């Protein structure tokens, strides 16, 4: 184990990638729920602005990863070996998610146009747009899931298992998918709150419509809190299993990882668990409770933001620890 201070670009890239994919999928679920419960118009009002934040985030993630590679100007070379390299697959999936998700976001943004402007689009195109949008959304979601899988497999790859014993456990893909779900749903909670407050601040929106948005927001936030509680439950089952694996595995590297987690990285490890449990566990319970009531809405919104901040901070420390488990030069098995 080592201090992975050179890996901040990878940490940022992975967190942004997982968060974006998670947010995209959670947004799709929330949109689908809003359509079923009210109307497409209300669903668009709820989700479209939140969607537009994902694109710039993905571009930021791409810029961050350039800090990890020695020759970023040769970035396209990374697509040369998708046949056997999970890293090449990850990069390809990230790019495809950015492009397909971007195309979807542009089409979705058309719903924000005024009715007069929308009428300028010819009728046949207007009829086709929702179908193309849904198709693109499905493809982007699947590509996003493949991106998270590829990102996890870079580290969980059996070809690395004999050296990177700290990563060679099912805990690695579980961690990546739990992060995706937690960060994605909670950031979306924050996005929906911001969107609602923005709508409320505008005078043009009808009170009836605002009331629907408020009810939808509470429903969605409740869904986010339940998802968080479920996901943190998965993580807190996976962690002890992983620690037992480290303790039981005879490889000296694993003993070293356990030792470092209880000495040099003990504070990191404590904070990682504490923040994740506080954000996705304790605060999520309060959020679920408050979302049932129409009072104390400001407190509810504050809790949603706080839960996201806690989970994000916990994930940053968690990823730092993840790279700290990278075996440095290991010529021998000692």
């Amino acid at each position, binding site marked *: 184990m080592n201090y992975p201070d050179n890996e901040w670009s990878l940490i940022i890239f992975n967190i942004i990638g997982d968060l974006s994919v998670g947010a995209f999928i959670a947004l799709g679920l929330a949109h689908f729920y809003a359509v079923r419960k009210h109307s497409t118009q209300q669903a668009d009002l709820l989700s479209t602005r939140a969607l537009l934040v994902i694109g710039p985030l993905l571009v930021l993630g791409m810029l961050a990863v350039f800090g*990890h*590679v*020695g*020759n*970023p100007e*040769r*970035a396209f*070379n*990374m*697509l*040369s*070996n998708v046949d*056997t*390299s*999970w*890293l*090449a697959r990850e*990069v390809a999936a990230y790019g495809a998610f950015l492009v397909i998700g971007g195309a979807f976001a542009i089409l979705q943004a058309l719903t924000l146009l005024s009715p007069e402007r929308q009428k300028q689009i010819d009728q046949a195109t207007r009829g086709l747009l929702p179908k193309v949008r849904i198709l693109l959304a499905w493809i982007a979601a699947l590509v996003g899931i493949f991106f998270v899988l590829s990102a996890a497999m*870079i580290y969980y*790859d059996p*070809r*690395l298992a*004999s*050296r*990177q014993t700290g990563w060679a456990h099912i805990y690695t893909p579980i961690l990546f998918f739990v992060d995706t779900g937690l960060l994605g749903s909670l950031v979306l909670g924050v996005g929906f709150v911001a969107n609602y407050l923005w709508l409320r601040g505008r005078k043009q929106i009808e009170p009836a419509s605002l009331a629907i948005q408020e009810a939808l927001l509470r429903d969605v936030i409740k869904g986010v809190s339940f998802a968080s509680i479920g996901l943190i439950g998965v993580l807190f089952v996976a962690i002890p299993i992983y620690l037992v694996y480290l303790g039981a595995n005879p490889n000296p590297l694993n003993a070293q990882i356990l030792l470092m987690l209880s000495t040099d990285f003990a504070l990191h490890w404590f904070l990682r668990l504490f923040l994740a449990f506080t954000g996705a566990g304790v605060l999520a319970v309060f959020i679920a409770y408050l979302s049932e009531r129409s009072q104390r809405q400001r407190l509810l919104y504050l809790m949603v933001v706080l839960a996201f901040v806690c989970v994000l901070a916990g994930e940053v420390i968690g990823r730092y620890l993840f790279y700290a488990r*990278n075996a440095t*030069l*290991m*010529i*021998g*098995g*000692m």
Partner: protein
Amino acid sequence: MAQYGFYVDLNACIGCKACQMACKDRAGNEPGMNWRRVLEVGGGDWQKVGQAWVPDVFAYFVPTACHHCSNPPCLPVCPTAAISKDSNGIVKIDVEQCIGCHYCEWACLWGAPVFYEEQGIVNKCDFCKDIVDAGGSPACVEACPMRAMEWGDVEELRARHPEATFQIVPLADPQDFQPNALYKANTAAGERVGTILNQEEI
């Protein structure tokens, strides 16, 4: 297809690191950047002989570099397809294709790929391909004053040194990567297991 490999007699090696220096010289590597490293391995304890405690220690040296594995873990994981095996089984890195993502470093069990901060690429032992193709011997083999090293087709080396193995302390278990390096074990250690003494240096 031939498969080149190295053979080192660890009883003959005196740890002078001439191989390391010759490699560095030929590759033009800066201090601290080594394609070939010499591990100093030692161990032992005090033994009671009659009424006296006497030291019973051992030490030996293990020169190591890229083992040009038959099934190299670095090759399939490289996203840029910069790593390949040539007709002599030499594992090469195309430095024009490499983007310096470090993935091969993470995959190699023996720390062979070396990252060059300034150029932003990874490179490693290329078996002195240009010298070998011109009919010479790799720089490390040529420089060894004890004639402890040999090179050639690994099957021929194995036939010449049937006792040679890769299962040498402290080299990591080769799994199914089939490294093409053979070592004649040092007899001083016997059944005892040593540790790497120059961890900082390597």
